Structure formats: C-alpha cells, structure tokens
C-alpha cells in the first residue's frame, strides 16, 4: 500500500516543464505589451494611450474596418471551404486528389504574395484580367471589370489564402468520421441530405467552427495583404495603422494599446466557440470502423467541378499563372511575346541579388525547427486540455490560443522588448525569430491538434493504462499512431505558417537573419515584381517538396501513408 503511494508517474514532471515553458513563452511578451500600453515614454503610469484609442477617429475607423474585414473573410471561408472538403472527402468527384494538392498550394502561398499576384491580375488599369476585358469588348482604356484596390478586393484576396485552414480541418475531420455512423443513419431510412444534416455536419461542426475561427483571426491580424492593397485603396486596417505607429517617431505604447481590442475580440470568440460545443460529445474514433463510403455524384459532378475550379482558379491557378508570366517578361504590363521574354529576373535573383541564398537557408532552418518544436508543444497542450489533466488546463488552452489575436507586428515588438535585455539577449540571432514564430504559430497547431484529440475517445488510452502502461507509454503507443495524420498536418501547418509569416519577421530580422518573406516585402516596396515572382515560385517548390517529404516520413510508428 505504501509502495503504491511512492510510484512516480514520469509524465507529471514532463507536463509541468512544458506548461512552464509555455507560460514563459506567452506571458513574457504579453506582459510587456500590457506594460507598454499603460505607460508613457518615461515609464510613468498613464491612461492616455487608451483615451487616444477611443477618441481618435483615425484609430477607431481602422478598428471598424478590421472587424468588417474579418467577418467578411470568415463568412466567405465558412461558406466555400466545407462544401469543397465534403466533395473531396465524401464523393466520387473526379480530380479530387488534385483539388487537395491545389488547396495545399493555396495554403503554402504567403497571403502577401497572393495579394501581389492579384494586383498583377486585377489592378483596375494594368490588371491582366481587365486588359482582356477591354480587348474582348473593345472598351476605352480606363474601363475596368475588377478593382482589387477596394474593401471587397481585400476581403477576396485574403479569403483566397485563408479558406484552406477551414478546408484542411474539415477534410481531416471527415476522414476521421467512421462510415458506421453515416451507414446507421442510412440503414434507419435517413436520406443523403438527412444523414448529412443530422450526422455528418454535426460531427464536423467543431472542425468548421475551429477553422472559421482561425480564418477570422488570421484575417484580423494579417499585415501583408492590407499593406499591399489597402494603402492604394486609401484606407487603413488595424495592422497597417499599428505599423504606421512604429514609423518615426515610434509610438509603441499606442500600438500596444491598439492591439488589446483585438485580443479582447479573440477571448469573446473563443468563449463563444466553447459554449457552442460544450454540451456535445464529439468522440468519433472509438474502436474499429470501416472506410467511409463515397457518394455517387452522377450528373452533379459538373457543377461540383465548376465550384472547385472557381475557388482554386482564384486562389492558385490564375495568381500563379500571373507570377510565372511576370517572372519571365520584361514589363509585367506588356503581353506575352518572344520579344518581351527575358531571363533577367531569374539571373538577378540567383546570381546578382546577394540576399537570396542566406534568406532561403534561414527560412528553411527556421521552418523545420519551429514546426518540430511547435508540434511537440501543441501536442502536449492539446492533450492536457482535451483530457483535462492538470489544474488550470483552461488557462493553458487560452494561453496557447492568445497569440493568434495579437497582430504579428505587435508580437514582433513585444518579443523584441522581451529578448533584447538580459538574461536573454537574442536579437540579431535566429533564436529570436524562432521564438517569435513558435509563439505565433502555436495557436494554429494547438487548434488543429485539439480538434484531433477531441475526436479520439479516452477509452483507448484507458484500456492501455489498465493493461499496465504508464501515461507516456500509452500516449506513445496508442494515441500517437491514431493522431499521426493530425500531427503531420500540424507540422506542415506550422512549417507553412513560418514561410507565410511576415509581420513579426519584418521587425526582428537583421542583416544576417533575413528570411524570404522579408526580402520579398523589401522588393515589393520598390516594385520589383519580376524578382518577387521568381522568389515566390522558388518558395512554392521548396515548400511543396518539404510537405511531400513530411508526409512520407515513417514517424510515429505508422507505415500507413499520410492522408492530408
């Protein structure tokens, strides 16, 4: 009896260590943020930043714009992505493998690169699509069909690169739903639509909600696309406004205060999500189950393919066609012709531009390190919160989600403030970028793994523990293999997130620690579209290679091919 009391569960110290690291990672920058929002330049306590925030119309208007923007993007993503995911996961639509590949391509595309591509396509006068429109109908030189420099243009350009978050989560959830449940409904006389409404949709609802939440928050905190599209349109979003507050003379206090409403909105959204899902159980992976049955589309396959073509044409096919064209022509505005072809941009990027090699190397190293550490961290936190193992698991879950509400720019400053003074002087090294990326990417990883964990009933772990395994052993042997596709998807998510990240990196990079996104931004500032296109296409190829490799690696004890 006394002996049993002394048996140590080795999982406890591991869990505590992880929790402590997480607290430090999130709390340190967050407390600097709060400190800066309530003090003036001399360090004295002051409410002035908040007074200015609510009284200054040039600060309130961007906040309103940002909320509209986020809601617009959330709406579009939640309407477009789930049907697409359902078509891919549950029907016999032709080319559905390609749809997954193209959605992944859209996911790995940095939103600011997409925004630049859409500038090339739909700027009111020089946009390729508008040129075609004029040529087709023989209109005067200023007639235009599309104008990307508008509020809707911005919502559209962001949605193109945010909907994959919803798609991937919903598609993975659909993959995990056992066919038994849907079959049961069908056996009991439920038609296809009834089964979808009463069984399938409720089961993937957490994934839809989680995905929409990620999309919404991404839209709210995105910096690159607004910086490229909103300024020519003549308006500010909260992030571009905050960025302008760091221009000389910098007002970090006001910027910190301006970011707190975004944090508040996130807390409210997360509470709402929690309340919506609280009363329902969503464990769907219990014992054995069969493979999902595919719905026969018949004649409906044509509208289905058309929908996919519309979505993927907007987010991948057209933009990349525009980038490829821009990469090989002298003047982006000129039509494609032999006389206009050039290898100059390719030559410039790889042989003249001294930053290319270093930036590619840094991006790759940071991507792999952040993805590996971030997945491990997110896995532990998701486990703790899903199984409610430690006291304060809810706080832990909140901490892991909080960074998503902080614009990367503000996070960049907060992290800058945290790691430029003893004991941790990391500015000028890759470590500070690693910490920044880890903090910023954690929420996406956590959300993803949390919904994966929710789908796995603890009964399997419990069975293993009853048979004598300790918590870590049962995690490794039982839960991990079940989570394999979720974990790999998370790793890829974070890796891609690092490739896409711009707003924090732009404040934290130095001469020796530049990354691809920062050099693309610098090139855009001076309008070097050809060089940007070459770099963007290179990044796409590298990222794709890494994602494919990650899905082939025999990790987590499974030899089955990955499903995402």
């Amino acid at each position, binding site marked *: 009896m006394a002996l049993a009391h002394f048996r140590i569960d080795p999982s406890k110290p591991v869990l505590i260590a992880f929790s402590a690291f997480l607290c430090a990672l999130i709390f340190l920058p967050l407390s600097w943020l709060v400190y800066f929002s309530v003090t003036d330049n001399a360090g004295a306590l002051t409410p002035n930043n908040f007074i200015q925030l609510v009284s200054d119309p040039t600060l309130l208007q961007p906040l309103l714009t940002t909320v509209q923007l986020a809601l617009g993007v959330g709406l579009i993503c939640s309407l477009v992505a789930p049907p697409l995911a359902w078509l891919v996961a549950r029907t016999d639509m032709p080319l559905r493998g390609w749809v997954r590949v193209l959605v992944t391509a859209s996911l790995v595309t940095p939103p600011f690169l997409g925004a630049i591509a859409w500038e090339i396509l739909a700027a009111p006068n020089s946009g390729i699509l508008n040129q075609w429109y004029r040529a087709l109908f023989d209109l005067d030189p200023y007639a235009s069909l599309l104008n990307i420099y508008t509020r809707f243009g911005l919502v559209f350009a962001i949605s193109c690169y945010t909907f994959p978050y919803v798609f991937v989560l919903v598609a993975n959830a659909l993959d995990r739903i056992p066919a038994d449940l849907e079959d049961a409904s069908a056996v009991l006389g439920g038609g296809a639509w009834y089964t979808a409404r009463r069984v399938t949709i409720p089961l993937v609802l957490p994934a839809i909600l989680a995905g929409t939440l990620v999309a919404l928050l991404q839209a709210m905190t995105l910096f690159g696309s607004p910086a490229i599209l909103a300024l020519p349109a003549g*308006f500010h979003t909260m992030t571009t406004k905050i960025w302008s507050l760091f221009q000389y003379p*910098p007002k970090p206090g006001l910027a910190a205060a301006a970011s707190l409403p975004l944090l508040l909105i996130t807390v409210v959204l997360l509470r709402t999500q929690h309340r919506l899902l609280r009363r329902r159980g969503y464990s769907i992976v219990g014992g054995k189950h069969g493979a999902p049955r595919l719905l026969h589309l018949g004649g409906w396959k044509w509208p289905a393919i058309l929908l996919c073509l519309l979505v993927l044409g907007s987010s991948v096919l057209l933009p990349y066609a525009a980038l490829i064209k821009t990469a090989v022509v002298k*003047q*982006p505005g000129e039509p494609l012709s032999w006389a206009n072809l050039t290898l100059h941009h390719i030559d410039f990027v790889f042989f003249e531009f001294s930053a290319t090699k270093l930036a590619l190397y840094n991006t790759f190293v940071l991507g792999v390190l952040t993805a590996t550490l971030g997945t491990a961290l997110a896995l532990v936190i998701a486990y703790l919160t899903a199984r409610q193992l430690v006291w304060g698991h809810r706080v832990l879950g909140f901490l892991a989600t909080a960074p998503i509400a902080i614009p990367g720019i503000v996070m960049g400053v907060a992290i800058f403030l945290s790691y430029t003074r003893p004991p941790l002087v990391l*500015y000028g090294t890759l470590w500070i970028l690693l910490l920044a990326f880890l903090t910023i990417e954690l929420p996406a990883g956590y959300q993803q793994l949390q919904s994966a964990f929710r789908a796995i009933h603890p009964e399997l772990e419990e069975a293993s523990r009853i048979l004598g395994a300790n918590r870590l052993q049962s995690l490794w042997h039982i839960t991990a293999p079940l989570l394999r596709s979720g974990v790999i998807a998370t790793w890829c998510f974070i890796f891609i997130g690092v490739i896409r990240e711009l707003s924090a990196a732009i404040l934290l990079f*130095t001469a020796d620690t530049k990354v691809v996104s920062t050099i693309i931004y610098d090139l855009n500032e001076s*309008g*070097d579209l050809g060089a940007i296109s070459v770099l963007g296409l290179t990044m796409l190829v590298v990222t794709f290679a890494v994602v494919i490799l990650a899905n082939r690696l025999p990790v987590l004890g499974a030899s089955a091919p990955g499903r995402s």
Partner: protein
Amino acid sequence: MKTGVNRGSRFTAMLAIALIATSSAFAAAPAPTAVTPELVKKAQQEGKVVFYTSVDVAVAEKVAKRFEARYPGVTAQIERAGSERIFQRLGQEYGSKIYVADVVNTSDAAHFIHWESQGWLAPYVPEDVAKYFPPEHKDADGTYATWRVTLSPIAYNTKLVKPNEAPKSFADLLDPKWKGKIVKAHPGYSGTIVTSTFQVARDLGWDYFEKLSKQSVMQVQSSTEPPKKLAQGERAIMADGNEYNLFLLKEKGAPLEAVYPTEGTPLITSPAAVLKNAPHPNAARLFQSYLFSAEAQQLLIDAGGLRSVHAQTKEKAGRTPLSKIKVMKDDAAAVEKEVETIKSRYAQYFGV
C-alpha cells in the same frame, strides 16, 4: 571614364592641398583621407563591409560588385530597404547595442542630422568629397556628404497621355480630368517623399495637397513605385516619385516622360556616412571613399539614373541636365523639425 581615386605618389600632395582647403572652410571637420595601400590592407584583413542603403537594389548591387572588383578580398554586403525602414532598423539595432552596419545611406537628409546629434556617425572626409563636392553638399563637421541626388518630378505614360495634353505644373494636376488617374508615394514610408512633401507644401502651401487629395489619388509606399505603376499603365500620371527610376525604365523602352513642373522640382539629396560603431571600421572607410570616387559617382549616373554633384562626372545624353531644371530648395534641418507635422497633415488629407 575618368578615375577620381588618387593614390600612391600623389597622395601627400593631395592631402596637403585638401587640408588647406578644408581647414579654412570647416573648422570641426577632420582632414580628408585618401585611400592608402595601408587602408586597403587593413580593409582586406576585415574582409567585409555592410552597407545599409535605400538606393534601388539593382543599383546597389552594381556598386558593390564594382567595389569588390577594385578591392579584391573585401566583400560588400548590401542591405536595401526604404529610407524610413532603415531609420527604424538602425534605431532598433543601436537601442539594443547591435552594431551590424558599417556605412549608411538614406534619401532623407534629416536622418543624418538626427544620427549626428546622437553621436552615431564617425567624422570621415574622403579625399574626393573635399576636392570635388560643393560646400552645400557636405556636412560642416565632416560626418556625411551627399552621395547621390535625385528629383521628384511629375511624369506621364505616353501611351495614355499625349505630350501636348500632359500637365506642365503641380497646379495642372488639380484639373478634374486627371481624377482617378494619378499615382503618388507616401511620406510615411519614403524619405524622398517626406522631403518633396515638405518642399511643395512650403512653396505652394498645404492647400495644394488638400485639393490633390480630392483627385482619387492611388497611394503607394516607396518613391520607386510610382514610375513602375506608370510603366505598367496602372495610372497615367505620377504626382511624385523618383526621377532615377523614370530614367531607368524609359531607357529600357517603357513609355514614360518626365515633366519638370514650372513651380520647381523637389530636390532630394541623399547622404552617406560611416558609422562610429562600424564593425569593420577600415573597410567602412575604404567603402565610403569608393562611394564618393568619380568612378562610383559616374556609375550612379550611367547605371543608376541618378544625379551626382561630383565635379568630375558627366551627365548622360538624353537626360535633361540638372542645371537646366528649376529646382526647389532643400532644407534638411527644417524637415527634421517638421517631420511629424508633415506626416500627420498628410494623413489628415489623404486618409492614410
């Protein structure tokens, strides 16, 4: 091409002349320094120089390549960003005691006044600066000098606007027929535009910008962008932007034409200086000397489309000579004092 770098036997004589020339004019400036074999040797031991610059990246890389060819064993690393970004980055790095940059150049001369007052710049006068640069283009304390000059003119796309219909002055831009057809850069992001906004507001009044803002102007960030938007045909007219990008694009065949407004064209001087805490102090000085040599200055003109105030350089055929253009007066000290007002008034009118 002439070479303005004086070395070897002439060095002592040059030094003596320069000493006399400058010591009378600038009491506080240090004696001009020529490039000695000893300096080159020390620079080669350091092996590298880091140059923070806002000049067009292709131009910067060309200068670097030419420097490396002339002084083998010293690599020039280019860190190109917009002027205001460089200002922010340097401030951020120095605030954390991180000293990466050796030589710095931005298009906002007011930055140098600020940096000098912070004590971040090292007094250093290259021989060419002492000999060939007019007094108004070098700092009295010998810490910086005008590395390059450009203008911020009006321009139009010749496919969209006929020459006889093109605007001739800033006032012409307020004509309703240009509504929705103008592009311009932003003073919050571009050092060139801070300077040009100051000069235009001073000479024409803020009133001009208030009226211009009603013309549905397309707003971009860097001053290098309006010429590129013009070349793409995205807008027909640019209200401000770099003259050097206009030249480079036009000479590559883009349908562009510069207009030097009758009220005067804003003059943008862009200094360069050696940083006091440069990690490669000798390479920094060698590089600074090279930047101001006749060879590098001529390169800026020929390959960069820029203007030079070096007495031995030649303007390129086909470009309007600087002497034929009515320019507005630059006043970096006033810009330094008024920069916040400039940005906030601008934001008030243009909404961004």
